[in-house]
Every structure is written in structure tokens, then in C-alpha cells.
């Protein structure tokens, strides 16, 4: 082991350790609606958007509310503190990332899957 090797090794351990810490801190498990309701950490869940007029709405605090349903008919009430994504009503499947607290799923982020005539794509 000469000086160069020690120097490089120290750098690798430093960067590797820091990255691994960041990695484990930013993992979001992808789980079913049933499991979401007993989870406590940040998770990701997919469901069909329930499309009747009444269930997609804003409350007085400008929170967006909507319901997701999985294949078994299990419902999840979602609230989102952001803007309603464009063409939200047209989405069939919605992926939400966030936490389940007080009978509500608080989404930080929404991903939509549109069946519309426009295929979703951006940079190739």
C-alpha cells in the first residue's frame, strides 16, 4: 500500500458510505392499498382513479381529494397539497407517493397513467 492507494481508498469509503446512507434514506416501497393502511413510512401505491364527480374535489384549504381503488375494490382516500395535474380526470391509473396518516393518504407526488390518444412520452 503506497500513499496513492490509501488516498484513493479513503475517498471511495467516504463517498460510498455517504451514498449508501442517502440510498437507504430515499427508498420508497411500492405496496398494495391494503398494506398502505398499516404502514408508517413513505410508500408508493398504485390504484384506479375513482371517477365520479363528487370524489375529486378541493376542500376549503385548497387540498385536492380523490379516491383510489385496487383490483379487490379496496378504497384509499388520498389528499394532495399541490395543484391538480393537467388532465387528471382522464387518468385511469394513478401512482401516489406519500404517507398514510389519520385514515388519509397524504401524497407528496402524483404520477398519472393516461390512456388518452396521446402516449405519454418525453425524451426518448
Amino acid at each position, binding site marked *: 500500500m*503506497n*500513499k*496513492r492507494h490509501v*488516498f484513493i481508498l479513503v*475517498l471511495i469509503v*467516504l*463517498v460510498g458510505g*455517504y*451514498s449508501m446512507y*442517502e*440510498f437507504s*434514506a*430515499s*427508498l*420508497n*416501497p*411500492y*405496496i398494495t392499498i391494503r398494506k398502505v393502511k398499516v404502514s408508517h413510512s*413513505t410508500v*408508493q401505491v*398504485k390504484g384506479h382513479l375513482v371517477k365520479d364527480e363528487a370524489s375529486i374535489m378541493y376542500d376549503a384549504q*385548497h387540498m385536492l381529494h380523490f379516491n383510489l381503488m385496487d383490483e379487490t375494490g379496496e378504497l384509499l382516500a388520498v389528499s394532495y397539497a399541490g*395543484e*391538480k395535474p*393537467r388532465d387528471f380526470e382522464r387518468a385511469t*391509473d394513478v*401512482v401516489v*407517493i406519500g404517507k398514510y396518516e389519520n385514515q388519509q393518504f397524504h401524497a407528496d407526488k402524483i*404520477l*398519472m*397513467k393516461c390512456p388518452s*390518444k*396521446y*402516449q*405519454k*412520452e*418525453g*425524451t*426518448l
Partner: protein
Amino acid sequence: MSFEVSKGGNVVVIGVVSFYVSCLFSIIVFIGYLFSSFGNSVNKKSPWLDKIYYLAVLFIVVASMFYMQAILSNKFQYIYIYNYSSINLTFWYKVAVFWAGQEGSFLLWMLIHSVLGFYFLKSGKMNRPTFTFYAMIQVLLVIFLLIKNPFMLGGMHLDGAGMNPLLQDFWMVIHPPIIFIGYSVFAIPFVYALGDLFSAKPSTEWIARSLPWALFAWLFLGAGIFIGGYWAYKTLGWGGYWGWDPVENASFIPWLTGGALVHLLYLSRAHEGGRRLTHFTAILTFSLILYGTFLTRSGVLNDFSVHAFRGDDSASLLAIVIFVFIGAAFVIFLFKYRSIQSVSLPNTLFSRAFILMTGGMLFYALAVLVFIGTSTPLVSTMIGSPQNIDITFYNHSILLPVLIVLAALSFCPLIMWNGRQKLGRRKSFFLILSFLLGCILCIYYQIYNPLYIAVVSFSAVAISMHLIKYKSISLPACLAHVGIALLCAGIIFSSVASTTRDGLVFAKETPPLIVYNMQFMYNGGSMSEDGMAADYNFTFDGMPMTLVTKLNTEGQIVLKKPAILHKFTGDYYLADLNRDLTLSFKPLIILVWIGCTFITVGCFFSLIQSFKNESCHITGILKK
């Protein structure tokens, strides 16, 4: 599949037939080369095989021309054209339909690959094993095209479904072809590296031959990525230019290993060290492009990415083909790599060989980080507990490697092939000054996180070191390095120091608001003449800003473009988020675009230089 012959059907049939003939000929050439290139008959020429290849190229060119003609003349019986085009598209957007979707973009890839193949076969710059691998990639593209066939016929339609309005933009028209040129050209270092493992000569010729093409591919892939970022910034309205989406990362990872490849090729051309790694990197880069193709086109990431292509049953088929191909390439490398002659690098931190290797390894480190993040959804799904990765992972974990990159950049001009230069006292003082300038700028923009301050200050040091010592490295490399430093500083300023004023609401008669201590006023809206867009005019600090909303034929909103006011100190970015408006200030974002331009221009000049030097390096090698 049915071949309906409709009006003008004969013309269409020429396109379809040429397409299949070209596919067939490509396969024949590959098999022919495979059996005649290895074993006893290595040096035997087979002119008829080459002629078949030229015909394959000719037919794919003809097929593409007819396909373009079919798009321009609204042949909606093709499922692909129906899906992406419509009668009312303007000429250039119709041209862009060619590469707007999966099937067409594979055809474009095949076209570029074939035309380049024609050049290499004609000029004799590839030996037989090398060209065999080149033909093998062509067969791979044929398989892609048969899975995702642009010539599939559907029912008759009077009008198409239309192009996604997001893609109806100048930058989006040129973005895919640029990216695909990058993808195709990375095949060249790949086949040279594999072909070299089978040639009897010492492994230096492939390095001199690959370098210009590696630069070429890196230039185009980089330019494509930068254009994608710029387009996202000025069209999407969320205010950023990079989202760490798996689809973006799929191009970014090969760009990073491509950067490693360029540095390692420069190293290997001048020095006998690190040659095995250079081989490996050339093979890896193109493999990563194929891996990215798989990630974005098979639909495996649909629940993780906002804009992956929609998936279907072809996913598993695509996966098998791609992984067999990549696997085969690496098996060949594993069996043959001991034949590559390589010596260890000089045992010091201060030699040009070592700093080039460092450059390569740092690109690798970044690539590994992004690769791990991008592959997490896929790998975790396979082991049974799907996990996604939050983008904070990228934003945080990339900081330390970037700091090391900037530190290495700062040292780079001081280190010569043998030993290092000393800095005078006055010049060291200049460096300390630029470090302090970086700190002061950060504090001015209220950035207090030490890691961010370090990135900005190290960028400043790297830039001034390159300015002081511009003579000791080549000018193109100097430009590209300064570009990287500017880009890093620009990213920190424009994202970390960005401020936002939201909840701005206007009605017709609203009095001017005071935002950022300047007057912000609404001057009313207007519809465009064709009824396809609505403009909302504002005045901010005496300058006009216009929000454009694009509508479809049914009058529904399809796209809300942000309005951007460019100032020397930064951009004012006005976005309509449906309920109210937000106005953000993005300080010094111009540094990001200048950085990208510098990298591209530097890369371009390196490319010219290396093409000029190629022949003299080759003669040098042959004389030995």
C-alpha cells in the same frame, strides 16, 4: 398482418418490400461474415457478401424514404402513422412523426447504423471480425424492428390521432435524431473493441480509430441531453430542466461512461496503461445504451416513470434479445481480455496518465450512482419487494463525487505527462481570490449549506486554474472542463437559490401587484386566429411576458407553456398551475446553458482535432 392495397398502394408496397428485403439481407450478411471471419479463412475476401450489404443499405434507405413519403401523404392505414400524425400537422412536425414513437425511432436508428456501415465497409477501416460485430448489431436492430414494426397495417382512417402537443416544438423535432445519432455511433467503439480482441496486431490501432467516433457519439448524446433539458425548462412549466426520471437517466448513464471512454481512449493512445479498462468501457457504454433501450421501451418502468413508453407483451422478448446480446459481448471480453497488453500506471498522483485515469474513474463513479438509482425499481421488483427511489438520492449523493470532480479539474492543468508544474505566488493568490468570490456569491444568494458553497467555490477555482494554465492542456479540453465547472455552479445557483412567489391571482381589472419589488400587471388575453392557442399578456418590470395555452380541436387545454423573462442576473419564470400563477426567480441559470454550450463546443473541436490526427496515428502504429 394484412397487406391492404389501397389508393397509391403500389408505391407503399415498394417501401414495405424494401424494408423486409433489407432485414433479410442484413441477416444474410451477418451469417456470411460470421462464418468467413473467424477460423482459417480470415483473410479471404468475399465481394458478394459486401455487395449484399450495400444492397441492404440501399433498401433501408429506400424503405425510409417511402415511409417518410407515407407520413407526408397521410397514409393512416399504418398503425404507427395513425397513432402519431394527423392531417393538420405542419410540414416539419410531420417529418418529426418519423421519430415520434418507438417503431419509427427504431427505423431511424437502423437507417443511421446502415449508412455508417456503408462508410466503414467502403473505406475498409474495419477489419473482418470488427465488421462482423457491426453486422451483429444490425441484426439486433432488425429484431427490434420486427418486434416493433412501423409497417404494421391497421384499419382505414381519414385522420390520425395526432402528435402529442408537448412534442410540437422546434427542440423536440431535432432532439430525437440527435440522441439516436449518439446511440448509433457508440456502436463503433464497441465493435472496434470487440474486433480488436480477435486481431493479431497489437491493440493500438482500434484506439486511434475509435477515438474520433467516441467523441462524435459523446458530442451528439450530450447535445441531445442538453436540448432535452432546455426543452423541459421552457415548455413544461415546473421550472426545472432535469428530473432524474428513468427515461432521462437511460441516456445520461451511457453519456457518463462515454465520458469515461473518451478520457481512457486519450490515455490509451499515448500510454500503455489502462488498456483493458478502455476495452471494457467501450463495450460497456453501448451495452448501457441497449439496457436503457430496454428500460424505456419495454414498459417495465411504467409505474415508476412519468414518460416511459407504454408497455405491452413484447417486453420479455425485448429483454431476452438485449440481455443475450450484452451477455455475449461480455463473455467474449472475459475469454479474451488477457490478450490485451497493458502495463500499470506510473506510481504517482502527479502524471497526466494518472489524471486521465482519474477523469475516467470519476465519470464511472457518477455512472454507478445513477445506475443504482435507475435500476432500483427493476431489481427490487425482481426480488419481490418493489421499491422506488426518491430523487433526493441523486441530488444528495452526487454532491461528494462532483466535489471530487471539481477538485480534479482544478489540478488537471498543472499535471503534465511527467511531473507537475509549480504555481507562482501571484497565481496562487488569484486562485484563493476566486475561491472567495465563489463563497461571497453563495452568501449573496443565501446559500449556507457548506457542500453547496464548496461546489460553487471549487467551480470558481477550476475555472480560474484553466484560465491561468490554458496553455498546458489542449484548448478543446480546456473549454469542456470550464463548461463542466460553469454547469455545476449554474445548477447550484438556479436550483438551491431559486425563490418563488405563488398564489398570484388576476382578474380583468386587478391593479398591478408588487412582486420581487417590481410592478407586475395583467393586460388581458387573446385567442389566436386559428383558435388553437390562447395568449395571456403580462407586464413585469416594464417588460412583456406572455403565457401561451395550447388547445386541441375540441377546445380543451392540452399544454400551458410558462413565460420566461431572461435577465442577466437570472430568469423570471412565470407558470400557470391551473388555480393561480407562480413567479419564480432562477438566479444565474444562464450559467447552465453556457456550461452546456462550452462542453458541446469543446467536444466538437476535440472531434475535429482527433479526425485530423487519426491518419497520422495510424501510420505511426503501422510503422512500428
